[in-house]
């Protein structure tokens, strides 16, 4: 079953976001999203240094059956990109909250409301 770690925040587009540490958040896709996509075979991520805007697509994930946009959950600058998931996207399926993280954004903290774990759990139960 899909896991929803308590310590993370979520978007309606099925990304997860860590609590900011020195203004930097880490972003990935949830296990629910990874399961729904099936085997992810290709992921395209924003470049390090790129500016991204909350709610705008900044990457994509391709699986056997479909392709999905990856949205920036907050506005800011991309400060790190996980090159190992670009090399081996299957890691996103096997460890979506750990080794399968996608990129990190330096953000000033302003941005749209995010979902907490209970709210996201409710969202995917109703899907």
């Amino acid at each position, binding site marked *: 079953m899909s896991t929803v770690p308590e310590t993370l925040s979520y978007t309606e587009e099925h990304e997860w976001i860590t609590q900011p540490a020195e203004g930097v958040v880490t972003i990935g896709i949830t296990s629910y999203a990874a399961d729904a996509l099936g*085997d992810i*075979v*290709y992921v395209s991520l924003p470049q390090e240094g790129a500016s991204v805007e909350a709610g705008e697509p900044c990457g994509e994930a391709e699986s056997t*059956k479909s*392709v999905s946009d990856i949205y920036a959950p907050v506005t800011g600058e991309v400060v790190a990109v996980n090159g190992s998931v670009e090399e081996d996207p299957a890691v996103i*399926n096997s460890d979506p909250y750990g080794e399968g993280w996608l990129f990190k954004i330096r953000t000033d903290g302003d941005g749209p409301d995010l979902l907490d774990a209970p709210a996201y759990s409710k969202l995917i139960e109703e899907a």
Partner: protein
Amino acid sequence: MSVPDTKKTPLHEVHTGLGATVTEFAGYLMPLRYGSETAEHQAVRTSAGLFDLSHMGEIFLTGPEAGAALDHALIGHLSKLAVGRARYTMICDVDGGVLDDLIVYRLAAETFMVVANASNAVKVRDELVERSAKFENATVDDRSDAYALIAVQGPKAQAILTKLTDAPLGDLKYYAILPGAVSGIDALIARTGYTGEDGFELFVSSGDAVRVWEAVTEAGGEDLRPCGLSSRDTLRLEAGMPLYGNELTSETTPYDAGLGRTIKFEKGEFVGRAALAALDGKAPGRVLVGLVARGRRVPRHGYDIVDSDGTPCGVVTSGAPSPTLGKPIAMGYIDAGRAEDTDLAVDIRGKHEPVDKVALPFYRRTP
């Protein structure tokens, strides 16, 4: 969310018990995948896979004129088919458009089984009833609900089934069928499939489906993996096999799909003959081609194929990441005048991604 009139196959509870991701397909709840669809795909290429295809239609034509009725209704020459053999064929409209692609098995001199795609089974049955009406000694009987269809596909399929049947599988030719007992259960055992591998399709009574599935699962052990529709689609795509609704539609003729050889004019009159005869020997306006992407983004159904100027010259009918090639592959129609172009691309959500045109199939098993 399930649609109220969605049907379940006799194996539905088996699938959910295995943790399958279930999807609605052609009015049925079907397993999309049980775990990793890539692992399912590889299992069929290297070992064996087990598929529930009970959504497919089984329509019987019986009687002294059954063969003549099929000769009239379909584009193939079925009255000539030997007992115990099968033929890939199609049912076309009067204008030559494909209504479905079919496999017809001759089970006895006066008994034929027509296997139709689930999405077209009712249409095919109704057409067969109408087209055979003038043959007094031919009867159409839709037994789709009475039959379950279980496929065992892959290089180890024969070794696995041999444990369960005394039927002479080694002597059973490709596109042949024989009755036999599988784990003591009556079955029609066919050497047919939709994966590009050796394999078998077992037509069994719906009430026996669970027992047959479980017997094959036990006999297969580690060598066999249950496989869903997702891997079935990538397997058939690698094998260059058309899918109705993608490569074949009522707007497509058999010639468009490169399957003109399945039209048997020598048999005489049949539905669609005049329209197809007018196309015979002429170059079709479009051709079905295989494409391999140079990059990693996947050309998918409905995307435009563009020429070196960026002008649309065709459309992708099926596309997926190929587990065997490790690259995205696709089939699609391109304008016949551009068939020799070497500088093609696919418009993948606004960006033209280069592709190489290749001969089909993408994958051919080593005999």
